[in-house]
């Protein structure tokens, strides 16, 4: 099956004070608003190794419901198991208080610092001060050592972007097999991108453990459909996208049926709202997220996912600042053409190899990555991050999503 034996029951990671286990050991530099994103990037760039910026575009004063969602994500990434310590950078006039984010993350036992650009005396002074703080945090981080951890402590996020017909035929079923293995080992597997459940929600609904979870799931799918209508987008017309259609996908239900294959076959245990805590040892769960892959990945990483497995038929290259992203393609041409950006070749399934065999290869790769092996996205410095926004009119019409 695989070239080398990997014990599927364990990996070596960084155990944090809150008990969760990281697969990377980063200092996260998190801007509180767009006005601090450039400083966060400069701090991480100058501080260098092990210091990662998470720049984003959220404004100083998001509307109230969006604010809750932004706070959830900003707090979540600071407390992700891959993060040893966090630095929150603000301009100083944001509605979101850095101190509250810092307090929440400090409650998980991590060292946390805050920095206000106005108080520091402007951009240059803030970057200087930020580098000092990041270096102090890195010193604490450097004391962490990898130790043996159980696979049941892994929270693995499944994602797809740039889908074509091979995503549903090969890559997603392979990821679904790996998801089943994580869940069978006692861990957590999570899929999101709610708009891509449309047309396949009946299958996920059948897998829900009880009526409460089923009702939550169906309400979330319906909400995303109404949200699209509200924004003047008809999902049923906009999906599959022109790129998807060129790749052979005809209808949204065809795309969705292929997309949900990433979630494997085990019971669906819960539906989590965007960016919120994902359970450890939680089995298969769903996070309600938009279809935009970078925002969807960011939500799951904020929820505590340590590793992302990302299928792409057409060849997406994106990563994440604090979580390794494992790229899986089912398209042999994409694997050949973009070999340096891909981690696992699932197109072998189209040549007759079993989904189970290639799923085993992927599962081994997930364990290697958990142990510290760099992914293609990490080797190339791919570190995309974006927070899902909630326009005020959506919130007014549809109500608070939380």
């Amino acid at each position: 099956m695989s070239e080398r034996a990997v014990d599927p029951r364990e990996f070596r990671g960084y155990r944090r004070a809150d008990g969760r286990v990281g697969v990377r050991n980063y200092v996260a530099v998190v801007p509180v608003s767009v006005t601090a994103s450039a400083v966060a990037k400069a701090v991480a760039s100058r501080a260098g190794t092990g210091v990662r910026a998470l720049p984003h575009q959220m404004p100083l004063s998001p509307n109230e419901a969006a604010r809750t969602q932004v706070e959830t994500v900003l707090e979540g990434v600071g407390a992700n198991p891959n993060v040893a310590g966090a630095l929150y950078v603000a301009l100083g006039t944001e509605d979101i208080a850095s101190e509250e984010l810092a307090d929440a993350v400090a409650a998980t036992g991590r060292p946390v610092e805050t920095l206000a650009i106005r108080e520091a005396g402007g951009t240059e002074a803030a970057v200087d001060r930020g580098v000092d703080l990041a270096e102090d945090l890195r010193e604490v981080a450097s004391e962490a050592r990898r130790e043996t951890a159980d696979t049941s402590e892994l929270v693995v996020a499944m994602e797809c972007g740039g889908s074509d017909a091979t995503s549903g035929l090969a890559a997603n079923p392979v990821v679904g097999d790996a998801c089943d293995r994580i869940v069978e080992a006692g861990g957590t597997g999570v899929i999101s991108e709610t708009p891509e459940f449309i047309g396949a929600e009946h299958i996920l609904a059948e897998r829900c453990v009880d009526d409460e979870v089923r009702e939550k799931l169906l309400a979330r799918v319906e909400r995303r459909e109404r949200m699209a209508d509200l924004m003047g987008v008809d999902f049923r017309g906009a999906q599959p996208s022109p790129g998807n259609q060129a790749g052979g996908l005809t209808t949204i239900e065809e795309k969705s049926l292929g997309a949900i294959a990433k979630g494997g076959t085990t019971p669906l245990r819960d539906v989590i709202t965007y960016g919120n805590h994902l359970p450890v040892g939680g089995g298969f769960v769903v996070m309600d997220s938009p279809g935009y892959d970078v925002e969807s990945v960011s939500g799951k990483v904020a929820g505590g996912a340590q590793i992302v497995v990302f299928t792409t038929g057409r060849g997406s290259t994106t990563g994440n600042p604090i979580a390794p992203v494992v790229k899986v393609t089912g398209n042999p041409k994409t694997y050949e053409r973009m070999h340096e950006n891909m981690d696992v070749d699932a197109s072998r399934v189209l040549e007759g190899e079993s989904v189970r065999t290639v799923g085993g290869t992927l599962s081994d790769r997930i364990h290697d990555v958990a142990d510290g092996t760099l992914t293609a996205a990490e080797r190339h410095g791919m570190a995309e991050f974006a927070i899902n926004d909630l326009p005020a009119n959506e919130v007014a019409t549809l109500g608070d999503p939380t």
Partner: protein
Amino acid sequence: MKGETIDDAAIRMAPEDNVVTALEDLPAGRAFDVDGGTVTLAEPVEFGHKFALASLDPGDTVRKYGEVVGTATEPIAAGEWVHTHNVVSTRGQPGDEGGEADSDENGDAERRDT
């Protein structure tokens, strides 16, 4: 989900599927042995695209993954390319009567239970 490859050139995802997906760019005239019969491509079918294994009438359901993925809008013969030109979603489709201004009502009107 386990597919079954046909002549290493197409894949059928479930036994009840009436369409299969091309695994390479297939020329018109290519013949496949399926279910004890022969399906001959009436036109070229690109990698990733689908062709019919059996003839479909307008309104017939198109099955892939063992599930309904759409409805035929015109007669489709076995061996013909199956895509947006002859299949619509069961969940509504761009250009539905009623337009975007009234997409809610339109969506409901066009939705079919399958």
